[in-house]
């Protein structure tokens, strides 16, 4: 009788250990996946920050230049409008 109990418990132990091994492997995979994703996200956030910095610099440059060339911009717009009007009748 005790032999049968030992065998049954042993089978459960083997099964549980196998399941545990499988879960540990899965856990390691998850951890690697998370590390990889965190790395990619970090890179993306760095690119975003760099772009925002570039954008701020260019925006400032653009606003300054726009003030400086305001009259010429108006003239360019007028020419563009004239071209658009003419294209309607072509």
């Amino acid at each position, binding site marked *: 009788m*005790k032999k049968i109990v030992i065998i049954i418990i042993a089978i459960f132990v083997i099964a*549980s250990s196998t399941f545990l091994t499988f879960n540990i492997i899965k856990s390691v995979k998850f*951890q690697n996946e998370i590390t990889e994703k965190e790395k990619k996200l970090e890179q993306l956030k760095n690119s975003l920050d760099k772009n*925002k910095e570039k954008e701020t610099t*260019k925006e400032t440059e*653009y606003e300054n230049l726009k003030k400086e060339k305001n009259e010429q*911009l108006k003239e360019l717009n007028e020419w563009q409008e004239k071209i658009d009007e003419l294209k309607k009748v072509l």
Partner: protein
Amino acid sequence: MARKNRRIKKSFIIIILSIVLLLTIGANLFILYKNKNSEKESLKLDKEYQTAKKNLDLEEENLTKLTSDLDNVTNIDEKIANAKKEYFENIKKLEDKILKGESNKKIAYLTFDDGPYYNTYNVLNILDKYNVKATFFTTSINGEKCFDNSKENCLKLYKEYVKRGHTIANHTFTHGIFKGLYSSKESFINALKKQEERVKEQTGGYITNIVRFPGGSATAGRLKNSIIEELRKNNYGWVDWSAEDGDGRGLNSKEEAWETFTKTIDEKIEVVLFHDYSTYTLAILPKAIEYLQNNGYILLPLFYESNVINK
């Protein structure tokens, strides 16, 4: 004794195996819980990545647009020059279509001779009101002071023409029909070049190569062909007119100006002659613009490549 020992051994094994089993079950539960959290974490990271990617794409789009806007402003002079070129190329296309009968549109080129005068300001203001661009055939018979208002400096008007988007053309420096302008082709070309310099100097570099003979090309008489030959050599184009209100021949009333004007408008492409100094022309100008527009004319400034410019 031996039997007792075997029973104790078996019980011990059962206990150990049970402990191991409980430990592995516990470990499994712990790992399963951890994996569940890891899965949630992984999904959260996926979402964060998608959002960050979207933001990056938007930022890149903004940056591209900003770079393009910056480029437009930095190279604004070039952009304006290209826009002007495109505008006149499109007018040429329209002219070609009209002349081939492929368009039912009509064009009228309003031209004003002999200025600048002080009255030119009034002409410019009416043209502004109707958003019409015209062509001004300028001379320097006025000198610095306006003939019709000696307190005012008429040279300032050259910059006004450019600022308001009109074409400046050349009507010779002296307009000296009775003062030797047509005594030789050299005297004509010299008067032309002098006026060209005046225009360039007063506008900061505007170059005009469109010419009108004072009094019309027929006034040059026997010299006409040799002058035309010289004009071609110097890359000038010239134009007379096909419609007018008669203000160059002396008018007695604005009604007379109106009658002459309406009688002469009948072509699909008209070059209309007015004079800056004429108060009768000023009086009928708004009505003349409306008349042309209501009769399907598009009012445009002259340009060298136009079919109406003789080259």
